[in-house]
């Protein structure tokens, strides 16, 4: 729950201005990007996702570092990714 997981913004969801599809280690899920409306997000940008909401825009460099950090955590990250896989935000 406390983990921020990095995702790459793939595309915005047309029928909902606050939703976008992000790719987290190959898992593609819709997340809410409404908290970053000031950031002028575009596909290809990286964001840190907390419980289905993109909370921070980050660089690709930072995304890779966070990703590596999370993999090092082991089970807590596996659990978070499992939870993300089960997510179906509409």
């Amino acid at each position, binding site marked *: *729950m*406390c*983990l*921020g997981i990095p995702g790459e913004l793939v595309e915005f969801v047309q029928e909902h201005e606050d939703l976008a599809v992000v790719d987290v280690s190959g898992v593609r899920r819709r*997340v*809410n990007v*409404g*908290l*970053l*409306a*000031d950031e002028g997000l575009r596909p290809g940008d990286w964001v*840190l996702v*907390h*419980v*289905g*909401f993109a*909370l*921070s825009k*980050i*660089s690709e*460099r*930072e995304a*890779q*570092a*966070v990703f*590596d*950090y999370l993999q*090092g*955590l082991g*089970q*807590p990250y596996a*659990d*978070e990714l499992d*939870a*993300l896989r*089960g*997510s*179906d*935000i*509409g």
Partner: protein
Amino acid sequence: MRFVDEYRDAGRARALAGRIAESCRPGRRYTFMEVCGGHTHTIYKHGLEDHLPSEVNLVHGPGCPVCVIPMGRVDDAIHIARRPDVIMTSFGDMMRVPGGSGSFLDAKAAGADIRMVYSPLDALKIARANPDRRVVFMAIGFETTAPSTAMTVLRAAAEDLGNFSVFCNHVMIIPAIKAILDSPDLRLDGFIGPGHVSAVIGCRPYEFIARDYRKPLVVAGFEPLDILTSVHMLLGQLAEGRCEVENQYTRVVPWDGNRIALSAMGQVMRLRPHFEWRGLGFIAHSALAMADDYAAFDAERVFDLPGLRVADPKSCQCGEVLKGVLKPWECKVFGTACTPETPIGTCMVSSEGACAAYYNFGRFSREQISAAAREPREASRP
């Protein structure tokens, strides 16, 4: 070179450790609190204390949201969940947290409809799909997750979704830090400030710590080198006679935080006059409830709750651990009666709890425990 190397490089860590040692005044002890459970996790996982000179003592703070949920609130949530018309939804982290009469997992095994969700928006989807049931989201967390709850409630209100409500247990980090600063139990020299919470609240709310309490605070990232760098920054401030708020984690944390997140929280939630924290007791203005305009989405008003206060088990010393007064291995039941499989206290439940982090990374040994037994207070009260 891989990106991550610059945050992990052993040579850089050694060089930084050398600079940290040079920054210490001989004979002086420095006690810094890392407020966030994520930092605690990194410190134990990478054995950072081994890189620090004996002058520097890191103590662990209350920044693990699962750890600070009082037992009475778990019981209230289970009371709601047992209703046949209710679907309770919760982050997975919450499932094993013990209340006075069991956990969510126990209640689920006994027939309550409790479902794990990744996001409050998943709970909203369950509410849409089950119009004949009342769907409650067990909202926990600091300012990292509170905006998500607020945005979800705004969405529910926009859709006029009448069968969705939130059992709001969001807590705030600043009153907890203030309670620790006002506590006579611990003398601190500075703080390693939380990373993701600060992405929401920014750095300004910490300024009173430097101004009124004369303690430096450095907002830090979660990599080992982030934490070592932050320790070096704290020592640098003390050596120069400065007490300021500094931001080591500019990669993620803007100085002013996230405007939209703060605005959503301000719209949907209000400050509670007081709230009980497990182990820490009641702290004034330390938690959020649903605002009156959103009463229809407030599980505390939608349902009748017992609202009973339940005392923590006598053998549990989570309160002392959460305040940084005790190290995990100094607790009477650590690793014996209390383990991640059979936790007595919350610090052993969450992977970010200090006790679970310490237990899982196997850094406790008989030597350390006997050393602790010889000088327990010296380790925590310099």
